[in-house]
């Protein structure tokens, strides 16, 4: 009885399995970055602002951590709570690695967002999150530095999350987040990397 083709078929199968394994290996290692990268990375403009516990905070204080910076205001009903929610999800998913990151929200509506207001707003999300505010003029410069266009009563055009690396460079930005997956994956990648 002729078993030639049977052998051929099994050999083919073997080849396919090999190819598949290689493919799986390759795809598992390749990582596509989800945020839009800034190249070359630019030093993020430093600032000195008041946090919810009324103590002054500099961006430079957080060298060695990945800082996720967000501009929003507590009265805002959609983007800001959503984004903070996603950042909270990311924070939880990162688990122990979370303390290598720091989430900050700089208000775009200083008149309403006093430290207490910010505090109570962020307490809905995570105690580690920092809410920052200051006088209008001080903030205006910072907004300009980060290219945030603030309309009256604090509404912004597009709400980005800025990713600042441990050296204090702005390396990437995220447009209005739709879920926490992309940003979590990116941070996991960065934290695992170096």
């Amino acid at each position: 009885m002729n078993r030639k083709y049977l052998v051929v078929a099994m050999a083919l199968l073997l080849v396919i399995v090999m190819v598949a394994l290689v493919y799986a290996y390759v795809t598992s290692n390749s990582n596509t970055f989800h945020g839009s990268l800034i190249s070359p990375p630019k030093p993020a403009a430093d600032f000195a602002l008041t946090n919810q516990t009324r103590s002054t905070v500099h961006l430079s204080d957080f060298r060695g951590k990945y800082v996720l910076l967000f501009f929003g205001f507590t009265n805002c009903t959609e983007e800001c709570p959503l984004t903070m929610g996603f950042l909270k999800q990311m924070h939880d998913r990162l688990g122990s690695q979370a303390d290598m990151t720091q989430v900050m929200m700089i208000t775009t509506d200083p008149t309403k967002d006093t430290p207490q207001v910010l505090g109570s707003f962020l307490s809905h999300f995570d105690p580690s999150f920092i809410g920052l505010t200051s006088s209008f003029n001080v903030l205006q410069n910072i907004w300009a530095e980060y290219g945030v266009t603030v309309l009256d009563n604090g509404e912004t055009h597009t709400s980005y999350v800025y990713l600042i690396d441990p050296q204090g460079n702005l390396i990437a930005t995220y447009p209005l987040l739709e879920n926490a997956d992309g940003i979590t994956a990116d941070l996991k990648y960065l934290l695992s990397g170096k």
Partner: protein
Amino acid sequence: MEQQHKSSALLLGLLVFGALAILTAVEFVFALTIKLWQFLVLIPLIKAGLVLYYYMHISRLFETDLDSDHESYAYKLLTNRIGLWLFLLSDAFIFGGLLLSRINLLGLTRPDLNQVLGLAVTSILLISSFFANRAEILMECGERKQFIMNIAVTIGLGILFLVGVVGVEWRLAPFGPADSIQGAVFYVMTGFHAFHVLTGVIFLAIVLRNGSRGLYSAEKHWAVEASVVYWHFVDVVWFFFYPALYLIGTLAK
């Protein structure tokens, strides 16, 4: 000699079945792990090739006639084979059309179906194909008793497959034919295939009845061969429908 031939043929059938089973398993695992549709096209092709060559004996079509008398049984047998295969070719175009429609309509998404059940019915049909092959070999060796037993098993498994798809799957499916395009494609593909399985079962039942009344001999059993080849064809079609419906692509919203 006759015994020799029989045992080797049965062994070969078993080996081929083993290969088919492995291929199906690999296919299933790939679908769960590596979501590359290319593999899910390649593997059914290999399976189809094996069945075409070892179970359906496509090479018999190209045998040269020993008897040139147009009225002789041997000559008519080859004529009948060609006729049957042309019919299968023509039938293959329906299923090809269905597959192309599915690709056009669903692309790389698939309906949300019960994976376990899908694998189950697929294995049932595969096993039935194995028994059909045994039945044919045993008929060739003129062992009527065992032939009848194997045909009976084949029919049983065929009915089981019908129950699994039409009776269970059609109820479990989360959509009706009119609900979504996934539903439409799923019901028309399984429907057309189930219809062919049904005709196959009827064909086999007739062969079983006539066989048990001793109408077929080791020399003259064209009806047996025809029904079995048709049964294998239905199985081959399912080789392609199974990944197309259950495995390829991501779940459709």
